[in-house]
């Protein structure tokens, strides 16, 4: 056992945990004030529900031996995973469970951005359980549990496919099925929360990406560096595009750009150096900016642009990994080193994820919509009143006189 690796992985796990509350604030700040509590609740309950699902059967489905497509039930309730590690382990095996749990928590929370301000809370709780089981665990198995994408040799250092493309396409399915808000498009109710949330995401992403080295080694250090550089580049790129187009650079745009950069560097964090990170960040800033425009113009009410940022950003990142990968780091050459092979592999992994997650998420939601007593969408008057008061019986902020 290496206490240094263990120390870093403990820290990284805590950092990734912190991302979901960060996301709660980020998303919460972007919606209308009357849906702030509701938006926070989607993320917060993801922590509560997925943690339990994960230790009971999620981890087993993702990391159990199984086959090429899904794990098995050998680790049900974590039995068979020793608390006391074997002598030659770098760190205790439960630490994998912990670190991966944090990823499983944030992924469905990301999806909620698509359907904020109108999704039924009770149905959402059930959706969480089903989606993690049916969509998240298998795809994790594909990439990290010995499934077909890992066999393919796809590079996905910290989960661009598993987390971001997956959440992004599920968001499209959700936005399609839940339908447009009665009144889409509004100013963010709380810009400081948006920025603080984005900052916590960024902070936690150091654990996400550098932690994915699974050791306190030079991979972790490089991942840390490129993560910061890509996020910074994407943030300022987004800002400058906005400045050129609208004559103004706003904090919401900058924060969104940063997130887009973080998403894009995620699969590449173990594969590129600092120049690759600048390229990936720049690409994320430009591509995701226009993806937001385009998708909004299409009339899909993916309220907080989950697909444009996480889906498109994730796809860009996965492909860019195939473009910019440095063979000194990954052992495989990318397009800039003259080989298109890796790019094609990356594209296959992207496609597989898009197809499976898109269809499976759609079906899950469709079924939930049809089950009597469930359904995806709140009533018109609940939506009008805001979900905070109508579903949760709370107002986000109450001033004195109004007490």
């Amino acid at each position: 056992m290496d206490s240094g690796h263990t120390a870093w992985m403990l820290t990284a796990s805590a950092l990734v945990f912190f991302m979901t509350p960060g996301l709660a604030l980020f998303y919460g700040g972007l919606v209308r004030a009357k849906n702030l509590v509701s938006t926070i609740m989607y993320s917060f309950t993801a922590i509560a529900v997925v943690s339990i699902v994960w230790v009971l059967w999620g981890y087993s489905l993702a990391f159990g031996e199984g086959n090429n497509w899904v794990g098995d039930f050998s680790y049900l309730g974590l039995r068979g995973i020793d608390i006391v590690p074997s002598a030659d382990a770098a760190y205790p095996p439960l630490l994998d469970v912990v670190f991966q749990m944090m990823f499983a928590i944030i992924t469905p929370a990301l999806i909620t951005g698509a359907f904020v301000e109108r999704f039924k809370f009770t149905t959402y709780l059930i959706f969480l359980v089903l989606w993690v089981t049916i969509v998240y665990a298998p795809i994790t198995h594909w990439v990290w549990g010995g499934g077909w994408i890992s066999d393919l040799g796809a590079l996905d250092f910290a989960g661009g496919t598993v987390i971001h493309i997956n959440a992004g396409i599920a968001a499209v399915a959700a936005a399609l099925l839940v339908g447009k808000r009665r009144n889409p498009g509004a100013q963010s109710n709380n810009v400081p929360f948006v920025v603080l949330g984005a900052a916590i995401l960024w902070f936690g992403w150091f654990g996400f990406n550098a932690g994915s080295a699974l050791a306190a080694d030079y991979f972790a250090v490089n991942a840390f560096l490129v993560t910061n550089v890509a996020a910074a580049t994407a943030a300022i790129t987004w800002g400058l595009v906005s400045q050129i187009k609208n004559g103004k650079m706003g904090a919401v745009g900058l924060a969104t750009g940063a997130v887009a950069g973080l998403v894009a560097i995620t699969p590449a964090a173990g594969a590129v150096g600092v120049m690759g990170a600048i390229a990936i960040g720049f690409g994320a800033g430009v591509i995701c900016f226009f993806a937001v425009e385009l998708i909004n113009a299409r009339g899909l009410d993916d309220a907080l642009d989950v697909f444009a940022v996480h889906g498109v950003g994730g796809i860009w990142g996965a492909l860019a990994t195939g473009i910019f990968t440095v063979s000194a780091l990954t052992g495989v050459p990318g397009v800039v080193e003259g080989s298109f092979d890796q790019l094609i592999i990356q594209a296959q992994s992207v496609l597989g994820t898009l197809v499976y997650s898109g269809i499976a998420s759609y079906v899950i939601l469709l079924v939930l919509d049809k089950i009597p007593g469930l359904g995806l969408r709140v009533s018109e008057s609940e939506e009008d009143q805001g979900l905070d008061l109508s579903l949760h019986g709370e107002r986000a902020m109450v001033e004195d006189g109004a007490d």
Partner: protein
Amino acid sequence: MLSIEAIVKPERVNQVSAALLEAGCKGFYYLNVTGQGGQGGVEVLVGRGGTTAGRSAVPKTLIRTVVDDSMETAVVQAILDAARSPGEGEIGDGKIFVSEVKEAIRVRTGETGADAI
């Protein structure tokens, strides 16, 4: 001149203000208030989620415009149309109060009366 004030559901403000402009109002302002009327309040959780309490006060928005006497009917009708919930309307859709304004002055120019509004 008349002051026409409407206390409406917050989610209707955009519609109501558009309706005011269409009806020919030159200006208006709105603000958030907390109100109680026939609606009997909204239920909220107090404490740690242990108990629900019937609360007497609901978030509302007050929107006010000052107009020429001649516009009263048109403006009131515009508000009624825009603020009423779809269907037959709901309790809590709000109230309109009309009162007299003696004088209006535009700060920029010092103009008064009908010219100022």
